[in-house]
């Protein structure tokens, strides 16, 4: 009896133990898929999209640093564009890359490997190279071999290791793309947002990237290899049809989970043209209006430089009846910077829309200033009255004006910002998907008064240029010039300009077809005759091309791109001490509002440390949590003047680089 009791008890326990194990097995969240279950054809579009964020924010900030954009954005943009006095690391490129993009690469690669999906494995390799190389360009050193592992405190790698790692990934990608995938495996077309599954374009992207990356070595006598670059170029994009771009759409209000930016739009737009704080510099606009001192207006000018409506008259129903286009004036940052010196580095004001006739009283103590101010009002035909030292100006209903009693800012309307609107950002319900102009308010929209027409590369619906044929041409031109093959350099230079014109024209034509030009004439195609006239004009070198000619046309074409900053570093900005190429970026110098004394400690322009050479690593995302590893590799990682420390490819030799890294 007793024994049987124990047997029964024993059985119950055994049953209990088994069911207990099952009962405890509830630690997989039933309401969310996990990383083991994501399909590769869903993982890839995510990676492609979020890389556009990383690339967009890197492009924006690098373009501010290389003088394309002037910014009033106090937290980083203005400091990169104007004062150069940045006191925190740049977090967004780092975070979007590692958290939004790179965390998916191992999962994509490993899942693809299990299925023998070679093309997805290859795509993972390409993104590895794209992202890490961009991080190398920006930060110089970071965790690489131990990054994206379970290690919560990954160790650091130097620039050379990261560079070689990225090149190896591209080689692997080329070989993987050359393999045929089984028909049962998800085809690349099912998950490729960028290239429609074209293995040919992906392969060309790999070769093109190799050329771009090998060009970075131009300071290194031992590693720079012109013929290798030309070989890569021969296998890279051969026409604008081979351009690799990420799409920008305007059909959704969904915003992203981490930063809160619109999801479907072009990444450059999300950072440059989302708000009102960015404007084009005088330095950049000069390349569109006076290239080579020619005074020739580039047909691309009105496509890149925004305009706003001025001299607006409203009809009885409050709709616009007449207006003129006010083309933006570039902000003088690098020259005398008169306006900024007067008002402060971030003082350029954004416009307000006048819903009624609006008076602003300006108290102007300085008699000369007052006289000039009154003169200006007369010139622009405004109604005003003067009483002692106060000038009261009436801004008529329908106009965009600066809502400040400070007379210094009153003329800031000419600095039209590059803002565009998307469905997710405009806040104007009636503004449809094919109207991407910026209206200052709903009232302005209802009246039809445009505050900015935007800029070619940075509208929500712009293509995000990942790798283009025109860049290939300019690389070719530079390489030939370095080989002293002037004839081929000239051919490639001209082909580059033409390729950029063609690419723009194709996009502008497609915008016209999609109906964007109904509200925005700057999105319409250029006149073909203007293009050919420009190509034959003095703005384009017709013989005797110089390195500066090549690089400035490249600078103009690349615009919102990190590559301009990379090129400027390779040529030591406007110093003119690289080879016998002379001054490559004439006129690019520190602003009179420069305040980065502690960051840029070089004593003169020819001292490498006079110029921006890298960004400091982000404090809050990296240094606060990984400081010992950071300092172990680079004891100067937290020094204020890390900003002027050249990165590996910016040094002529490893010895020079290691010298910087030593204590």
């Amino acid at each position, binding site marked *: 009896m007793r024994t049987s009791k124990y047997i029964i008890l024993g059985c119950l326990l055994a049953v209990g133990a088994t069911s207990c194990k099952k009962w405890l*097995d*509830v*630690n997989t*969240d*039933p*309401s*969310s*898929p*996990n*990383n083991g279950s994501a399909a590769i054809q*869903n*993982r890839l*579009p*995510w*990676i492609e*999209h979020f890389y556009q964020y990383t690339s967009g924010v890197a492009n924006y900030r690098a373009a501010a640093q290389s003088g394309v954009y002037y910014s009033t954005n*106090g937290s980083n943009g203005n400091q990169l564009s104007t*004062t150069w006095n940045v*006191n*925190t690391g740049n977090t967004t490129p*780092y975070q979007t890359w*590692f958290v939004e993009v790179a*965390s998916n690469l191992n999962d994509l690669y490993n899942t693809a490997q299990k299925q023998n999906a070679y093309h997805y494995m290859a795509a993972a390799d390409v993104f590895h190279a794209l992202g890490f190389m961009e991080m190398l360009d920006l930060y110089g050193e970071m*965790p690489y071999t131990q*990054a*994206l592992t379970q290690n*919560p*405190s990954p160790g650091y790698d130097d620039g050379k290791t990261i560079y070689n790692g990225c090149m190896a990934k591209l080689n692997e990608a080329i070989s993987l793309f050359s393999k045929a995938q089984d028909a049962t495996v998800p085809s690349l077309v099912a998950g490729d*947002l960028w290239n429609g599954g074209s293995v040919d374009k992906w392969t060309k992207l790999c070769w093109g990237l190799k050329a771009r990356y090998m060009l970075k070595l131009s300071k290194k006598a031992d590693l720079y290899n012109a013929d290798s670059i030309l070989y890569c170029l021969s296998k890279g994009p051969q026409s604008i049809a081979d351009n690799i771009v990420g*799409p920008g*759409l305007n059909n*959704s209000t*969904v915003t992203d*989970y981490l930063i809160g930016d619109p*999801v479907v739009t072009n990444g450059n737009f999300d950072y440059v043209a989302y708000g009102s704080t960015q404007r084009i510099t005088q330095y950049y606009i000069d390349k569109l209006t006076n290239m080579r001192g020619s005074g020739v207006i580039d047909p691309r000018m009105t496509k890149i430089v925004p305009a706003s409506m001025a001299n607006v008259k409203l009809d009885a129903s409050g709709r616009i009846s007449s207006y003129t286009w006010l083309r933006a004036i570039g902000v003088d940052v690098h020259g005398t910077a008169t306006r900024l*010196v*007067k*008002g*402060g580095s971030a*003082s350029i*004001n954004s416009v*307000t829309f006048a819903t*009624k006739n609006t008076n602003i009283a300006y108290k102007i103590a300085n008699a000369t200033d007052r006289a000039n101010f009154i003169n200006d009002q007369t010139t622009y035909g405004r109604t005003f009255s003067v009483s002692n030292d106060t000038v009261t100006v009436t801004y008529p209903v329908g106009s965009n004006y600066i809502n*400040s*009693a*400070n007379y*210094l800012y009153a003329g800031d309307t000419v600095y039209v910002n590059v803002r565009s609107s998307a469905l997710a950002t405009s*806040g104007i*319900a009636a503004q449809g998907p094919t109207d991407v102009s910026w209206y200052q308010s709903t009232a302005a929209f209802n009246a039809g008064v445009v505050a900015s027409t935007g800029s070619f590369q940075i509208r929500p619906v712009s293509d995000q240029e990942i790798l283009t044929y025109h860049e290939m041409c300019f690389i070719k031109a530079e390489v030939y010039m370095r080989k002293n093959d002037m004839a081929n350099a000239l051919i490639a230079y001209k082909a580059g300009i033409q390729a950029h014109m063609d690419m723009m024209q194709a996009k502008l034509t497609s915008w016209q077809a999609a109906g964007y030009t109904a509200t925005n004439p700057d999105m319409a195609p250029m006149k073909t005759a203007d293009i050919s006239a420009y190509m034959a004009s003095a703005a384009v070198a017709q013989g005797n091309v110089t390195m500066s000619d090549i690089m400035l046309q490249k600078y103009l074409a690349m615009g919102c791109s990190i590559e301009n900053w990379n090129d400027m570093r390779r040529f030591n900005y406007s110093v003119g001490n690289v080879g016998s190429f002379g001054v490559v970026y004439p006129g690019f110098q520190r602003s009179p*509002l420069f305040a980065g*004394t502690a960051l840029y400690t070089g004593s003169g322009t020819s001292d490498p440390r006079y110029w921006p050479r890298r960004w400091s690593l982000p*404090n809050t*995302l*990296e*240094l*606060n*949590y990984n400081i*010992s590893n950071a300092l172990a590799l680079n004891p100067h990682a*937290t*020094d204020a003047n890390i900003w002027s420390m050249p990165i590996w490819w910016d040094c002529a030799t490893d010895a020079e680089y290691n010298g910087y890294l030593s204590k």
Partner: protein
Amino acid sequence: MIMFAMFCMITNNLIAQTVPITGTVLSDDGTPLAGVTVLIGGTNKAVVTDNAGKFSISASANALLQFSYVGFATQKIKASPGMVVHLVKDESHQMEDVVVTAMGVKKERKALGYSVTEINAGELMKNKNTNLVNSLNGKVPGVNITQFSGSAGAGASITIRGGNSTSDSRQNQPLFVIDGIIYDNSTTVSGNTGTDGLSRSNTTYSNRIMDVNPEDIENLSVLKGAAAAALYGSRAADGVIIITTKKGSEGNVKVNVSSKISTSWANKLPDAQKEFGNGSYSSNGVFNNNTYASNPLSGTTLLMYNSWGQKITSDSIYDNIGSFFQHGTIYDNNVSVSGGSKNGSFYLSGSNFNQTGIVPSTGFKKTTFRFNGEQKYGNLTVNANAAYSNANTDRTLTTAGLYAGGGGGAMGGVYSFPQVFNMKNYINADGSQHRIYAGTVALENDIDNPYWIVNMDNLTSQTRRFTGGINATYKLTNWWDVIGRVGYDQYNTNDYTYIAPGSAVSPLYQNGRLSKNLVDYTYVTTTVMSNFHKSFGDFDTHLMLGTTSEKTDVTNQNHWGYNFITANSINFNNIATANQFFKDGLTRKRLVGAYGEVGLSYKDIAYITATGRNDWTSTLPVNNSSYFYPSISGSFVFTSLLPKNSILSFGKVRGSWAQVGKDANPYATLTYLNSPITIGAFNGVGNQYTSGNPILLPEIQKSWEVGAELRFLNGRIGLDYTYYHSETSNQIAQPRLSNASGYIFKSINSGSVLNTGMEISVTGKPIVKKDFGWDVTLNWSYNKGRLGTFLPGVSYFYPTDAQFGTVKAASIPNGGYFLGMTGTTFFRELDANKVEMPNGRYQVDPNSGLYRVNTGVPTVPIVGNREPDFIGGLSNNLRYKRFLLSFLLDFRKGGAIYNGTEYAMITNGLDKKTLLNDRQSVTVSGVNYLTGADFSQTYTAGQTYTINGTNVAGTYMIQQYWLNYAANSMNFIQSVNWVKLRSLSLTYDFGGIIKSKKIVKDLTATAVGTNLFTWTNYKGMDPEVSAAGGTGGSGSTGIDYLGVPAVASFTFGVNVTF
């Protein structure tokens, strides 16, 4: 079924053959003895005497009643109605009081090897707070309470002996156990920036122990150390609070009615300057009071709402802050019915609590019901209890504006509104929001008027909760019993957030937004345990074996949408389907535990107890899901070996060592995907920013404590001392780590938290007379929390929820403060080695003409330790005839507080400090950080200065000076001391006046004042602060930021027993 069982019990009670026995217990000198345990012989049914020494119990006619009390000889007396019992002091039986320990087991206090503090109903009710946790303030050494805010329905956090877990998502609060069933006390932040625009700092949240009616509590036992709590397993590492609710006693049915009315008011408000109006000066000195531009420091405030403007000449100054807050009221009514027979008893209660807050249109309402019943069938005793509560909170937006909304919420708005505008003017005749800068600022960039928020928006939270348990004890023999228990705890919280059309929010939501959030929590537990008890000569042994299982399911559903089509119809059907959204989630957790305890004692001299428990949890990887932890404790009553003396009447030393495991939060082992995104024809998915960890191990706390209990002068003075040390290693955390791992947060096992501390409790009875008595208790304790070793290279450990102004709550690895705080400071002058001199002059940046701010490059400055040096309470009970006067002082010494409210009011120009020199001049003096030369510069209004090549006006620099001042966290950090008169109560007992006790048996009236006085060096509002109500990790205690001010109150109540 449950209802039927209840009914049966009530019926049984009524027909049982018992008589009511009432009586009074006095000491041999005639003083009434409160808290004497009256036990019916041969049963485990007991009651406790009240403050007048009275008791009432139902017992069979010839029952023997056993009277036991600390320091008095236990007596057994035959029950008789109206009996008066005199207890005689007996040193040899001094410590025979019984306390409730882990798993509800009652033990003699002298047998315990660890510290336990008990609080009875009378003590709790002296300053009754609807949030039970708040009533414990100052009463238990080693326990730290932080009230989240003074708003109605606001929660509070409680930690015992410091926090043990660093991570945001990990609770450091003790486990609450009510009548043997674990009772959830989480503070659920249901808000989500994406769905209803709320985060923790937007409003106040309740902690769920608030669902308990404090009047139902008979006794509360605080188990502080791991040894005391080890049997409770994974969730006991932070201590346990065991609550026993009231039971009926044998005799007549007793009806108790109590009614309270209370008024409350803001304790202290910040003082705003009344000299300067709104607007600000731009860099060239032009005055602007209509420019839309961001404040360069805060980035969110609109400069025209700042008070950097011109001297106010008119008389139109509005006391916007003072007139915003109103008097709050509370109506609190309770009814209970209890009774019992020889074989059964019941207790039934209902309560209604109705509070209006000091912020207009806010309030907290709570209705509770409870049934407790007990029935005996031979050797089987069955207890059942069921409680229902319904709590409703009308909340306000507090310190931060809604996500995608302008302004700073209601409270942020109140503390920034320029005094030249009448804030009460919030609505136009057409029903739209009255906006001062309506033509200038787009609605989405404007700030909401606080009155608009409280009157037009609607934020409510409703929690309905049912808890129930059935407990059966079967006594097999007189040395062996078996107990079975099933417990159920279920609640659902419905949060409702409505943003009215016309609010200053993102354009998408300007035509209204509605969000409903449901959290449904279900917890089921079963326990079977068996006790064995045997004596062998002078040795006494006991053994307990038990097993328990716990099942927790939490579902979360959120619905939200925006843009109401038909005006004034606030519902989802009035929203286009494209603008309706929903989300849901399910969190599941399971745990099985097996435990045992073995004890051995020798005479009444030496005791030793060992426990062991093994848990199997669902939240750890299968290979690590089982873990065992032991504890051992002992006590030695050394006075038993000494000759009897009246000086040291009793002495005991005790010690314990324990290890407790703590499992992970659910789902920490895997990495999950974000919601898919759709771009063109493609659907993309990617990993979330939190990485799971498939190799997690349990967190282990090892702790020890030693202590002593001493009684002097026949028990007139008592001393209880404890020193403890705990180390919680293998911390399961989800910290922010290097993003290079691919994630922002990563589940890891790393590091340890060290807590050491001391607790002293002194009790005294200075006066023991027939008509006059004075009892006093002093509690004093300190805790030192440190974060031990951690991942190499990790310099700070931030709980994300607690970042306000310029400071962030932080734990500092490698021996730094657990309750640390990082911030921004001014750089100081460097010495010859280029190291900052501790008290050197400030560095000045010639590029700005102001002090140079260290914003965390290269290292983030640690600006304070929020942990107090010590805390305590002094509790006094003075009895004169039928008057009972009690007061509780609680005190604290040290511990940094960040006055973020002053920070905010300096940045917006409302703070009185900014009146320095009538805003005519400020002086910056220190060293030029570039040249090292002395720097001194006075900026005077009306002058112009050239700084970094730009001409700037003096008026502008004066403004910049204060923004610069605000950037130095140290300007707002203070080591704070306080003494608070936490409560003062006077009770009169009409018992003697009532002649006929047939109907009214007892009547008392009480007047209570709470928080009437605070003596403190703190310059802000109330030093007892916690900006975000953070309870996880190091929380947000010690950060004062634009909260609803703490309140003081006065309450009058009567209590009638029929």
